[in-house]
């Protein structure tokens, strides 16, 4: 496989030198190593699937996607962006998974008159006062994940909750976002540690606090550990749990197994969405990569589709206002269904209740239950002057 990677890199170099002038290069900076590597891998594979469907084109324009691993280090992301901008003369960027990497990388791209289309991270500064005409987010503004979970908790009628999140920026934002639409009582906010993998102390405390439900934000491996330990402690049968999409994606559900069953989450996409675009995407993803699509894969795919729609309208040109006009129209069917850009170029879309259930083959499936929020934008758009 290393050999394969090397030969594709070699082939890529060859393509670079012989490419026609019309080709658009897309710099895809994403997280491939570290425990969170699967997020970037899925986003990239989703993006590439859209390119492959058109035989190496997006919206009729030949594109070349250059991927590089930011290793979840902001400084490395910045370094790659500099290389792409200055050395490869790339104008169009995407791929970043984490807000801290985006915080380091995005300003540099925008200053160099580049365009950034985020397939995942949507930190609040860029949604509000630092918004930019060349910066688009196709996934969500970070708070949406937690606002929708809060709205779900309200809808389910919970009155006394315990909220848990890691003691860092995203964790604190999660709790703020959750409280915005939840409105009910909070018995306690518990802050866990960044690398914590054992939650028995917190769970014993939750048992003694007797809430009707718990909201927790622990993405990736921490989320898997939390779900497993929650089920083992027996609390799962007594106290309901609501989480945001990053704490219950398809990979987390698969790795947590039975421990995930019954847990509720909110998301703007799910594998079972019945629309045609999604059916084609899910089947195409399975066929090409031999695994189930995830929310990150759908976001990568939708991002590519939105870029494709814009390129189609401009005939492959990036460097005039036409690209922005075309991009903001979002004239394409996305896997998530209804979608439009808000005034700050962040999504306005619907959020759904998702529940982990046991599938016929014994594995865990995520099932869409119903709509929680409709045409939901974000709280920062009012601070954005574009």
């Amino acid at each position, binding site marked *: 496989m290393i050999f394969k990677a090397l030969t594709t890199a070699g082939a890529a170099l060859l393509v670079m030198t012989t490419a026609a002038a019309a080709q658009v290069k897309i710099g895809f900076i994403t997280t491939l190593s570290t425990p969170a590597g699967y997020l970037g891998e899925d986003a990239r594979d989703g993006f590439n699937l859209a390119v492959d469907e058109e035989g190496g084109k997006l919206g009729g324009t030949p594109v070349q996607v250059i991927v590089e691993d930011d290793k979840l280090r902001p400084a490395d992301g910045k370094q790659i962006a500099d290389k792409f901008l200055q050395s490869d003369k790339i104008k169009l960027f995407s791929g970043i998974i984490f807000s*801290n990497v985006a915080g380091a990388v995005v300003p540099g791209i925008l200053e160099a008159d580049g365009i950034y289309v985020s397939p995942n991270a949507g930190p609040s500064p860029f949604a509000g006062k630092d918004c930019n005409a060349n910066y688009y987010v196709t996934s969500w503004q970070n708070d949406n994940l937690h606002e929708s979970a809060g709205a779900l908790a309200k809808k389910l009628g919970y009155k006394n909750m315990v909220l848990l999140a890691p003691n860092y920026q995203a964790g604190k934002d999660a709790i703020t976002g959750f409280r915005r639409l939840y409105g009910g009582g909070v018995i306690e906010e518990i802050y866990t540690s960044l690398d914590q993998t054992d939650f028995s102390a917190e769970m014993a405390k939750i048992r003694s606090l007797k809430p009707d439900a718990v909201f927790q934000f622990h993405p990736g491996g921490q989320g898997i550990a939390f779900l497993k330990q929650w089920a083992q402690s027996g609390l799962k049968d007594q106290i309901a749990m609501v989480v945001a999409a990053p704490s219950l994606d398809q990979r987390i559900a698969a790795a947590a197994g039975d421990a995930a069953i019954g847990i509720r989450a909110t998301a703007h996409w799910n594998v079972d969405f019945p629309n045609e675009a999604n059916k084609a995407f899910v089947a195409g993803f399975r066929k090409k990569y031999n695994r189930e699509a995830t929310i990150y894969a759908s976001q990568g795919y939708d991002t590519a589709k939105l870029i494709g729609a814009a390129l189609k309208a401009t005939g492959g040109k990036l460097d005039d206002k036409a690209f922005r006009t075309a991009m903001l129209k979002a004239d394409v069917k996305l896997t998530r269904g209804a979608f439009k850009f808000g005034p700050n170029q962040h999504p306005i879309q619907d959020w759904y209740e998702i529940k982990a259930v046991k599938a016929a083959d014994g594995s865990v499936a995520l099932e869409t239950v119903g709509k929680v929020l409709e045409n939901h934008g974000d709280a920062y758009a009012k601070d954005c002057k574009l």
Partner: protein
Amino acid sequence: MTDRWKLLRSILIVAAAVALIALPFVAAMLGSTYAITLATRLLIYAMVATGLNLILGYGGLVSFGHAAYFGLGGYTVAILAFHLGEGTSILGFPGTNEALVAWPLAMVVSGLAALVFGALSLRTSGVYFIMITLAFAQMTYYVFVALKYYGGDDGLSLARRNTLGGARIVDAQTFYFVCLALLALVIGVVQRMTVSRFGMVLSGARADERRMMAIGYSPYRYRLTAFVIAGMTAGLGGALWANLARFVSPDMMAWTKSGDFLAMAILGGLTSIAGPVIGAAAFILIESTLSGLTEYWQVIFGPIVVAVALFAPRGLWGMLAGKQER
């Protein structure tokens, strides 16, 4: 040391100096600003590795927490700029964007941290020293991750580069030369120190602590001084880094970063002045080339690091110099 080697070494050093000075002009001619940015990054890492080499190579003290001082230096610059932007004050002082204030202050902050952590850590030795320096760095890391006011783990952006004596350092080329000049200064200071009595005591204590004590030197004070100087150097490196990236985050203090600095110093070769510079350059170039080449870069980079540890104990410079310098 044979005369031929002496000559060869002088030629190499002069050639390297000429190359470093000519680099931005050549890059500008070729229209590659990225090469200048990359080279600036190398200079900064080389500076940190040079400082680290003072305690690592000459002092024989394996500090596994050097990233903390690098990060503290960077945060000093970023926090001062942040308060300037917000129009607020920190500990009664207004923020600033002036390098002549911020950079020395970054060195003072890192130096003070190194003084406190070093004074406690140097009571131990060997593996205990490695681990206690790591522990202090981890504590610093977690504090900054949780510091919501300064961005927490999302980090802090700098709106613009520091001004140097009121003048703005906008273009990549000027900033490169600022870093180059400071690196030369750091190398000069470290070089002087290693050949002075201070350096002799430091290396002497590494080889035989008791003998040094018997002839009346207390290794502790010398080691602590070296530790503080290494910390201040890392602080200056961090301050420059904050200006280059115009961004700081707790990631600068992660333990893996400390590992990277160690690897740079060893890769180039300890107890030589050129070693850390070569090591930093080789490390960055190999890592960034590999990760540009394949997403599974770790599978290749890991074994390279292992091979250096196993087969090139004196590093790349040591290999180049062969037996000449021993």
